[in-house]
């Protein structure tokens, strides 16, 4: 049915209320227990006029500009309407009046009171009163006969009495009501209704039915009932035409009958099921206003007129789309009484209409009315049912004309012929949320925050006196506060350390404008304004570091510099919702599509707008809580994207988990009240702070009094955070998550607080250790292992110690193995890192360096880094001439670092001075810059190419062979060490002077030939027999075949060493052991030898960087193998 039930709204404080329309129907007038009469222009009137009429108002009547109220001060007062000026007291009682009513002409007022009396007073002359005595209890209600002859009253004594007004006598009395001793304890208010115009019928609510009495004969002619109404009816009201009767009951049922056909034409249920205590028809008969005992006001709109109700009772399929809203809303009700409360279930109507339908029929109908899934099948049902009820209807109301019959039985002739609108039953689309500035309050407020961020606050005032914008900085060192007149009507604002950006929507004459106050500019012009093209409105704007971005209604995103230069422009995939910026990052959230069932479908893009622009998040869906919308969008102070949804869940980007979003806090959990909210203004990762403004009973704060910022902690929603284990897990993962920004910052070239990071890591490891201890205590060794896998290598050793001390040998052993594994991993990583460092050193001048890191951190796509690297050589070449000197120094830096780790850098290979010397000496040694440049160009070329598999052929000749054996080396070595660990543990260790040589020896047979230099290079390590032998014999090998490459030399040496007799080899090994103590000597010797060799070879210079590289990797392996041994 097309009757629309408007949502209830607050009218008065809790308690009894009454409602009426004024004569014109322009105003709804209500009164309530707060003693106010409110005059509403419509249901949506947010600012109704209030007239105070006393402490409480029980009833009101309105006619001809006179407002009569029954108040708690025992009087019946008159006020003028609509002015609301007091116009005297009409009459007084000894207790308060309970109900007042006008007669049809408005000349008299009847008032019933708790002192058992009914008075009829002339409005014009209040001295002319008629008192009707005869009730034995408080009077519940009074109503005039429209012909002014009689008056009906209902009382708590259970009677309804008809009085002859002029004679002040009882005409008749019906003891039909339930007795009670006071109005407040009465089951029903029993508001009577006398049919207007014809004045033929008097409607009396009796329990859950309405009795109709006929005038003059005073006989009970019929009863109106509805099986939906189970509780007493409070109010009845006739439509102005006199054909429809509306009733409101305790429990909130609203029913409209056609008085003639006695059929129910409309059914509604109060949205909260509160008792209806006041009801009034609009003079047009199209609306019913009603109030409930909770002080709310509601409205039924678009009621069928009397004629339409009788002639064309709506066919079931003709339904307004929003009726479905009601359907869904009332799902709960329906579950309770399947279809009973459902106004829209058409098949129900005949049942209600012919209230005595046989049960069989009822049962037959019920399945069809309950949850209708399929309209098509339903229509079939309807047809079959029509015939049944038609017959019934005719049987029952045989004398009724066709129209009335049709009204009672779902219009059999018209129903099928009506055009059926295709009906959609699926999930309903959600209206897309409007664009907003993060940290702003709604634009309709006269005083509002246009933005509140970590820099400051922009407030907008838009009232009668002033249209202005106030800019205030949290830190006055940034800039002093500003007060700007807002002549353009700006509605959007953003604030950064450099500028204020304002924008206004387009008006009829003016285009949408963007205004920037660039207060940090060093020239005299601190302001610029840009007009957007016609038809384009600014929807969201944001200020980054040195740039501004504006998203418009044309779904374009425009970039400007902060000085006003237009830059890139690109299209967004949907309408923008919000934007945020931090440094060079831009975060855009837009509508990805239509959401359903209350959900929003948002997409997010994260762009990097530095010198090298790229997109980090490519329009992926933004996860939101169920039925929530986006409430705040921003970055943490450290630059991690972050947002809050309307459910109060704060989510943060987890860069180490493939750019997923992790919920870090639920602000609603800390709210005290249900309607309290936290309005987030900033998020900090270090220290972990969520800065927000607590708002009592609202979603956003008022501008005055100035709200104060509160701090909330983060809390990951892990399971069982009440237990110790859960707490520690939460702490650990929170700490790891919030530490992500360190790697991001360092990768994007910012300075990183190393101390903080280390502290963070230390804390994490401590937590792990605690968890480890806890699991240990609980004898969960497997879990211990799992925890240990998260630990760093050094902490694992601690764990080993802990395990062995608590006598868990099995665990200790496993941990030990894990420690070894970790050590090897570490070694590998370091190696990779070193390689990367080389690459990065080259790139350092450009932000490209991030690629490498990104790959490991984000794991986003592996193809890009490769492309990037391939591009490098070209660009490098261009830069080279400029940067040669710097480059050379940089190139050598890692080298120097390596040197610091191992003070002397012996190399098995001959090397020129250039490679070995202090990088700072390069220039000092008097080499011509051009020379160094040349070598550097080559250096960078090769080092850059190295990681690229394709770049091989054009590289150095020497490079290939050297590199290849290096690559697989760590693996084999790791295996060997592991193997060795296992074996050496299993088999009893031989008594050894020094544990270290054991490893060396074991390694020795397995080491591939090129590996030997690795061992050689470590001056700390004792050398193996072969190395010693090689040193001794290198010269002779070289002399034999002078044009051998370095590796070939070693190979050859290996061959000849093998060919030695076993004793010889053993003796070399012995010597090696002996010499391990004083490693310095042989090395020096070796160096001399190298120098000698290297001297003559010009070409060696070119090989330098290869050596350097090798040495670096060698260094790490050296370090690591040392580590491995220490573990033992």
């Amino acid at each position, binding site marked *: 049915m097309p009757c629309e039930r408007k949502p209830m709204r607050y009218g008065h404080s809790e308690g009894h209320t009454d409602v009426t329309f004024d004569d014109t129907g322009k105003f709804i007038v209500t009164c309530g227990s707060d003693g106010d009469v409110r005059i509403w222009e419509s249901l949506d009137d947010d600012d109704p006029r209030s007239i105070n009429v006393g402490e409480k108002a029980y009833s009101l009547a309105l006619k001809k500009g006179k407002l009569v109220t029954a108040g708690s001060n025992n009087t019946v007062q008159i006020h003028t309407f609509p002015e609301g000026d007091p116009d005297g007291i009409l009459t007084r009682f000894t207790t308060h009046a309970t109900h007042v009513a006008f007669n049809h002409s408005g000349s008299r007022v009847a008032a019933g009171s708790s002192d058992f009396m009914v008075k009829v007073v002339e409005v014009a002359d209040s001295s002319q009163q008629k008192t009707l005595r005869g009730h034995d209890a408080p009077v519940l209600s009074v109503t005039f006969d429209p012909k002014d002859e009689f008056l009906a009253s209902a009382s708590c004594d259970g009677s309804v009495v008809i009085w002859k007004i002029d004679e002040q006598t009882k005409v008749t009395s019906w003891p039909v009501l339930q007795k009670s001793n006071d109005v407040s304890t009465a089951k029903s208010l029993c508001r009577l209704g006398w049919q207007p115009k014809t004045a033929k019928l008097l409607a009396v609510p009796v329990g859950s039915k309405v009795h109709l009495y006929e005038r003059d004969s005073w006989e009970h002619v019929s009863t109106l009932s509805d099986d939906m109404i189970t509780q007493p009816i409070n109010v009845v009201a006739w439509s102005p035409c006199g054909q429809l009767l509306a009733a409101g009951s305790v429990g909130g049922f609203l029913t409209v009958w056609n008085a003639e056909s006695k059929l129910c034409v409309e059914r509604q249920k109060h949205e909260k099921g509160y008792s209806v205590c006041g009801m009034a028809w609009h003079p047009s008969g199209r609306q019913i206003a009603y109030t409930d005992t909770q002080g709310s006001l509601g409205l039924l709109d678009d009621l069928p007129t009397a004629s339409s109700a009788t002639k064309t009772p709506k066919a079931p399929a003709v339904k307004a789309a929003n009726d479905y809203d009601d359907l869904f809303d009332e799902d709960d009700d329906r579950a309770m009484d399947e279809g009973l409360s459902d106004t829209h279930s058409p098949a129900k109507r005949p049942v209600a209409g012919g209230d005595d339908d046989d049960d069989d029929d009822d049962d037959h109908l019920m399945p069809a009315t309950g949850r209708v899934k399929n309209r098509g099948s339903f229509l079939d049902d309807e047809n079959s049912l029509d015939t049944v009820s038609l017959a019934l209807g005719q049987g029952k109301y045989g004398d009724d004309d066709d129209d009335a019959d049709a009204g009672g039985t779902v219009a059999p002739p018209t129903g099928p012929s009506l055009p059926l609108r295709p009906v959609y039953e699926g999930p309903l689309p959600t209206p897309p949320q409007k664009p907003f500035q993060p940290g702003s309050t709604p634009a309709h407020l006269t005083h509002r925050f246009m933005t509140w961020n*970590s820099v*400051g606050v922009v407030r907008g005032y838009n009232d009668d006196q002033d249209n202005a914008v106030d800019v205030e*900085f*949290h*830190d*006055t*060192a940034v800039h002093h506060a500003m007060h700007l007149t807002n002549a353009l009507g700006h509605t959007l604002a953003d604030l950064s350390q450099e500028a204020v950006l304002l924008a206004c929507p387009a008006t009829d004459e003016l285009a949408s404008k963007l205004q920037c106050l660039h207060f940090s500019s060093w020239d005299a012009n601190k302001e610029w304004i840009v007009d957007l093209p016609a038809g384009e409105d600014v929807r969201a704007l944001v200020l980054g570091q040195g740039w501004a971005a504006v998203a418009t209604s044309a779904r374009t995103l425009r970039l400007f510099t902060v000085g006003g230069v237009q830059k890139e422009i690109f299209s967004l995939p949907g309408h923008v919702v919000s934007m945020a910026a931090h440094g060079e990052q831009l975060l855009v959230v837009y509508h990805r599509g239509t959401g359903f069932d209350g959900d929003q479908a948002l997409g997010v893009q994260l762009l990097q707008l530095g010198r090298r622009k790229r997109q980090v998040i490519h329009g992926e869906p933004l996860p939101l809580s169920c039925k929530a919308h986006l409430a705040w969008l921003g970055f943490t102070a450290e630059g991690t994207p972050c947002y809050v949804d309307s459910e109060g869940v704060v989510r943060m980007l987890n860069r180490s988990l493939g750019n997923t979003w992790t919920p870090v806090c639920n602000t609603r959990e800390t709210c005290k009240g249900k309607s309290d909210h936290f309005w987030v203004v900033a998020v900090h990762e270090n220290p972990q702070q969520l*800065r927000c403004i607590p708002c009592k009973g609202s979603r956003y704060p008022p501008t*005055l*009094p*100035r709200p*104060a*910022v*509160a*701090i909330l902690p983060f809390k990951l929603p892990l399971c069982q955070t009440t237990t110790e284990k859960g707490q520690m897990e939460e702490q650990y993962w929170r700490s790891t998550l919030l530490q992500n920004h360190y790697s991001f910052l360092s990768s994007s070239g910012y300075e990183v607080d190393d101390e903080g990071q280390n502290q963070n890591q230390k804390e994490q490891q401590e937590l792990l250790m605690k968890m480890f201890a806890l699991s240990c205590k609980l004898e969960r060794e497997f879990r211990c292992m799992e925890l240990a896998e998260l630990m760093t290598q050094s902490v694992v050793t601690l764990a080993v110690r802990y395990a062995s001390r608590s006598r868990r040998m099995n665990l200790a052993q496993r941990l030990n193995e894990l420690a070894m594994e970790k050590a090897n991993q570490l070694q590998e990583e370091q190696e990779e890192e070193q390689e990367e460092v080389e690459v990065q050193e080259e790139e350092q001048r450009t932000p490209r360096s991030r690629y490498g890191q990104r790959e490991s951190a984000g794991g986003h796509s592996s193809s890009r880094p490769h492309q990037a690297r391939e591009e490098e050589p070209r660009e490098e070449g261009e830069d080279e001439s400029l940067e040669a000197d710097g480059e050379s120094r940089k190139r050598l830096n890692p080298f120097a670092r390596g040197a610091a780790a191992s003070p002397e850098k012996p190399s098995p290979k001959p090397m020129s001075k250039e490679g070995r010397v202090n990088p700072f000496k390069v220039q000092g040694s008097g080499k011509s810059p051009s020379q160094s440049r040349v070598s550097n160009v080559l250096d960078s070329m090769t080092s850059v190419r190295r990681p690229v598999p394709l770049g091989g052929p054009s590289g150095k000749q020497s490079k290939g062979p050297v590199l290849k054996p290096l690559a697989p080396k760590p693996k084999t070595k790791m295996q060997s060490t592991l193997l060795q660990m296992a074996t050496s543990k299993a088999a009893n260790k031989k008594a050894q002077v020094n544990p270290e040589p054991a490893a060396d020896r074991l390694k020795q047979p397995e080491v591939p030939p090129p590996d030997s230099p690795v061992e050689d290079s470590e001056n700390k390590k004792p050398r193996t027999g072969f190395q010693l032998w090689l040193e001794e014999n290198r010269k002779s090998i070289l002399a034999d075949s002078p044009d051998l490459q370095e590796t070939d030399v070693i190979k050859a040496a290996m061959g000849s060493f093998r060919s030695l007799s076993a004793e010889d080899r053993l003796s070399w090994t012995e010597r090696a052991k002996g010499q391990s103590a004083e490693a310095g000597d042989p090395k020096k010797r070796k160096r001399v030898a190298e120098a000698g060799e290297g001297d003559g070879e010009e070409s060696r210079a070119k090989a330098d960087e290869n050596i350097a590289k090798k040495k670096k990797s060698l260094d790490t392996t050296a370090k690591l193998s040392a580590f491995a041994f220490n573990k033992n």
Partner: protein
Amino acid sequence: MDPAEVEFLAEKEIVKIIPNFSLDKIYLIGGDLGPFNPGLPVQVPVWLALNLKQRQKCRILPPQWMDVDKLEEVREMERKEDSFTPPPSPYYMELTKLLLNHASDNIPKADEIRTLVKDIWDTRIAKLRLSADSFISQQEAHAKLDNLTLMEINTTRSFLLGSLNCMFKLRSNMQPGTSTGKGPDY
């Protein structure tokens, strides 16, 4: 002890301020303060708050009790009860004076608060006078007064002690003659 000294003690009370500058923790004998982040509330002693306020470096957030509704409640209580009710703060008078004199722009409804606090103060001092009067007239040896603030004690102490001394002198002079029942006249 004169009022200035009491006020000095009151300056150690903690209030919240919103600084508009940024500063690391400062380490003082009385404890560490800060760190100060612009826009973020931080707790500092009143003396520092006032100092910063005078240099326009912060905004002071009024203490919780410095609120019209709460003070009205206290005033009603104070008027209803014969004995002293717990004061809103042990230094309510001093703090009100200090904060309202220096930072009235940060305190909503400053005038009303000033009046209310003055009312409370007057009520309490009246009670104090009354009890001192009955103390003397009934010639009691001791009396117990709860919930008095330092400032209130100090306002009566000098006078009360002086007059008691004086009465003692007078009484010891005419000890043999008069009975103890008579009230002193000074």
